[in-house]
């Protein structure tokens, strides 16, 4: 998979504050990439750097192989929903989208058609003639998302697209993002980790401006390398643990302190399915009450582990 977006050793300083620190990322073409991290981790700065709105202090950024040069942003390569950027209040919704589409090189008729479709996609058709000043925060956010749809094959970057939206709209938006992903590379940031976990194929975790984890969602969560078994009650037969340790590719078996959970580490992710089956067999043979099996950790847990204050 070729890289749609690459950041190589990028650093961004605001005076004496380092917002992004030697960040190297590769966002594969066609991926739905989640950028997550606590407040102040550098996500928004990273988005602004990728959009060409900020100049990196150091490092190199490439969009589809083309290096971003200072003052020459990736025009026509990226369409983003920036955080805290306002659309002009005095303009009407459809008029605003048509203008932005025409700036992108579309004819009047094409701009209108795409803008109307984009408004339909974000569920705002009935507000097309409203002034932006008359919209709620959530509705304005949706207009912001709609403007990313009136392009061509640009990489779409959504900085916290669901912030401030009600749960139903956020869910619908998630579905929209997923359907868009069929044709586009999408990068999104969100504090809603379950949303990122559900939607994204890849993710990167930032902390204090540094990259602390990145890869496919399975790699980040350790889906192929970690098996978590929940038990109804602690194992009565200690031999079960020894039997689990003998399964091919199992590296370690760690029971939880209260005995109602077992963490099994696998060496080869390709054997994860086989290991899961074997583990269940062994446990059932030893009379264990299996409540549930989970492959890998929750993204939330990985997030907490990697961004804990001690992790740097």
């Amino acid at each position: 998979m070729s890289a749609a977006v690459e950041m190589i050793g990028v650093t961004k300083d605001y005076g004496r504050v380092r917002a992004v620190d030697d960040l190297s990322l590769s966002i594969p073409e066609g991926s739905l990439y989640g950028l997550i991290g606590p407040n102040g981790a550098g996500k928004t700065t990273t988005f602004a750097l990728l959009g060409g709105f900020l100049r990196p202090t150091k490092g190199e950024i490439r969009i589809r192989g083309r290096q971003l040069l200072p003052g020459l942003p990736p025009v026509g390569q990226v369409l983003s929903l920036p955080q805290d950027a306002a659309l002009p209040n005095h303009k009407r919704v459809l008029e605003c989208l048509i203008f932005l589409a025409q700036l992108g090189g579309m004819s009047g008729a094409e701009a209108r058609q795409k803008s109307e479709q984009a408004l339909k996609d974000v569920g705002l058709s009935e507000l097309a003639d409203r002034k932006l000043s008359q919209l709620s925060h959530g509705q304005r956010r949706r207009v912001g998302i709609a403007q990313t749809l009136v392009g061509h094959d640009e990489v779409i970057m959504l900085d916290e697209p669901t912030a401030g939206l009600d749960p139903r709209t956020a869910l619908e938006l998630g579905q929209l993002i997923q359907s868009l992903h069929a044709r586009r590379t999408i990068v999104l940031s969100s504090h809603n980790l379950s949303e990122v976990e559900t939607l994204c194929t890849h993710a990167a975790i930032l902390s204090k401006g540094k990259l602390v984890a990145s890869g496919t969602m399975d790699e980040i969560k350790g889906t192929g390398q970690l098996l978590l078994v929940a038990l109804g009650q602690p194992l009565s037969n200690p031999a079960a643990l020894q039997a689990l340790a003998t399964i091919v590719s199992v590296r370690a078996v760690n029971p939880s302190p209260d005995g109602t959970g077992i963490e099994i580490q696998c060496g080869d992710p390709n054997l994860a399915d086989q290991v899961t089956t074997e583990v269940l067999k062994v446990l059932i043979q030893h009379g264990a009450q299996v409540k549930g099996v989970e492959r890998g950790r929750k993204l939330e847990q990985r997030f907490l582990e990697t961004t804990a204050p001690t992790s740097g």
Partner: protein
Amino acid sequence: MSAEVNPGVRPERNVLAETWCMARAEAIEMFLSIRALFLVITYGGIAGGIGAFVVWIDGKMEGKLAEASQKAAELSVTEKASLVEQITKQGMVSQTLAEAIVNGDLPPLVLTILYTSTFAIPILIILVGYNRIAEDVSSRYTRYVLQRIHRGAYLAGKIIGHFLVCFTAVVLVHVLLLGLAKAYDIFDLGRTVQAMPRIWLGMACFVLAYVSYTVMFSSLLQPPFLVLLIAAMGLFLIRFLTWVLSFFWAPLGELWLGVWDVRLWALEPAAIGVFLGYAVVFIALAQLALRRRDL
């Protein structure tokens, strides 16, 4: 919600098309704004008021100004040359301007009105457009726009839009005043109408220089109010400084645009050069600022 949008084929990027799209939107928005109306009313009021006053004075002098102008136009070539020399010697006007007046190309009444009313135009140009870039940057609207067009096209579009609005407003005021003059048969309209294209060419250079001046500050500074403050104060400060410097060395007094505007109406090449030169410098600084800054 579902995405039906087909990404389609991306069109070739064309900086000229980007510029035109930006300029058109900018001009339409500004034409429809209250500020364009303010420019027409204020400049129209000032020019009309001064015009009425000059015509009244001329009437009190029993049309002596207009009569002298008519007589000058009827002089022989040698007499005209001598008159031009006399006027130029007094140091009030340049040779080209003196020739334009003596030859009747620039009616003195019109020149007087222009000379006394033009002082208002730079400040009105600043008032009309001081926020056009600074506000986009402050609100970060530029992040929506500048992912679609190049920064140079954005800047050029802003300048063209601002220029079109200000220049049209100025020409509109002139046309309205000429209409009034015709309705009341106030002065030699034929010669004045003939002089107008030359005046408007000069006015185009004048407006472009001050639009570029405004755009430069709007690109360099934010918030918008600071742009207004610094740009307006700058006008007076630079004028004052060059005036003070002229006491030390006279040519320094001609460093700023302020002393060149009258020569512009006679389309003096040096005056056009000064105005266009300043416009180029202001635009270059604006482009440099916009290109280098974080948005």
